[in-house]
């Protein structure tokens, strides 16, 4: 398995959920201390479900791809599902051999979304 799987390369080049929302119900943002990367996630909610979500930020291909598959997994799903997801759920989708030193890159979008859905903006 490659470090940069075809899924990562594809999501990095052609992300499906990249961008900003005009009137998000929740916004989360955090920084990866390893590299200073920043990921922001905005979402709109209706009846406890994610109706629309977008990610943005200045980040590596792994974080970008992780954010993109995360928002795909969450599309139309109950917000509570975010709590049940783990970095392993994202790894499965990414189909990549991520080293321990880069696992923070995978985990960052997930902790950002979880923080946003907890109703509190995570520390900047």
């Amino acid at each position, binding site marked *: 398995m490659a*470090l*940069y799987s075809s899924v990562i*390369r594809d999501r*990095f*080049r052609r992300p499906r959920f990249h961008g900003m929302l005009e009137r998000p119900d929740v916004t989360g943002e955090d920084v990866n201390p*390893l*590299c*200073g*990367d*920043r990921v922001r996630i905005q979402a709109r909610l209706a009846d406890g479900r994610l109706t629309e979500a977008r990610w943005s930020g*200045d*980040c*590596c*291909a*792994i974080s970008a791809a992780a954010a993109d598959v995360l928002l795909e997994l969450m599309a139309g799903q109950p917000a509570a599902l975010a709590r049940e997801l783990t970095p392993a759920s994202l790894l499965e989708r990414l189909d990549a051999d991520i080293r321990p030193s*880069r696992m923070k*890159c995978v985990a960052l979008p997930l902790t950002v979304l979880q923080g946003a859905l907890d109703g509190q903006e995570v520390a900047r």
Partner: protein
Amino acid sequence: MNMGDKTRRDFPILSRVVNGYPLAYLDSAASSQKPAQVIEAIQRYYETHHANVHRSIHTLGEEATELYESARDSVRAFIGARHREEIVFTRGTTEAINLVAQVIGRTLEPGDEIIVTEMEHHSNLIPWQMACRDHGAVIRAVPVLGDGYLDLDAYRRLLSARTKVVALAHVSNVLGTINPVAMMAEQAHQVGALVLADGAQSVPHLPLDVASLGVDFFAFSGHKMLGPTGIGVLYGRREVLGGLEPAWGGGEMIKEVWIDHAQWNDLPWRFEPGTPPIAGAVGLHAAIEYLGKLGMSQVSAHEQSLTAAAMEALARIPGVTLYGPRNPEMKGAVVAFNVEGIHPHDGAALLDQRGIAVRAGHHCAQPLMKRLGIAGTLRASFSVYSVAEDVARLADAVASLRSEL
């Protein structure tokens, strides 16, 4: 045969294969590799001479003390210090700077100023922030100009009677800029400030004479100069060091102790409480002998030619931005760069797939990254064992980065 081809066989790790490729180790500025001479010196020490130093009245204790103190003499000669009392062993550059910041910090008063530069490694910034925070003093920073040099006019304007310390990198760990420390120290002394230079990136690469640099303190690490981890040096000018209180208490740093007070030991042991890194000092001594045999002028010339070749090759690749001075004579053995559209960590990971080890990220210099308006860079750095083939492989791999992601 050039230096790299000759020395490589001394470095066992360079025969490693990484991800199916022979290792091209271009991360020596983070930590250099070790020649067999250093590894064997440490092993010999543990196998035949080890005991605690200064206190053990037996043969091994005397041998260990002799080895430890002779390492101090070799450091003194290597950096051009006048007196052996000026050489304090620490765990590394970071500890040496913290030692000074803590001791000088206690003498700071509200309104006093510490001058640093925007290109400092966090290890020459955070200790001063902490000292200022604890004593109401203020940090001022010399700006870095677009070409990677310090704004020396701004520096002169920052200096005043309030300036207590000027703390600056001798060589930037990102830009490679060799700062005009001697001139800056002279100007600092005119306003009565003390000067500390962070030599972590200069001692391994340049001929050095601290006495003529004119600094009061000079800090560096063993592991970046072919020596082991866990040993570093604080040079302190005798007249300054002698007037300072110890940073930390413990055994060895005292002459006589009562239950409620103590009399401090002489220099340099006053600043070396506890059992020191003896094996580290032995390894550092071996590293200095190794570098001494090569000759630091030759080391510097060898690395400069690789730095020049790397800058030239990388600059030709579309999408590559280089940071820092473009004149290799004004630079240490580092080349920081970015490839458009490629995050430095992705770049480093892809290079690693080809057995090429480079550093990526903010290089513990976040204020500099903010100044440059970037999150991080890739950085290739060189040492005595680096060869032209390393540079060629780097340039080849960098040229194809954008097609790989």
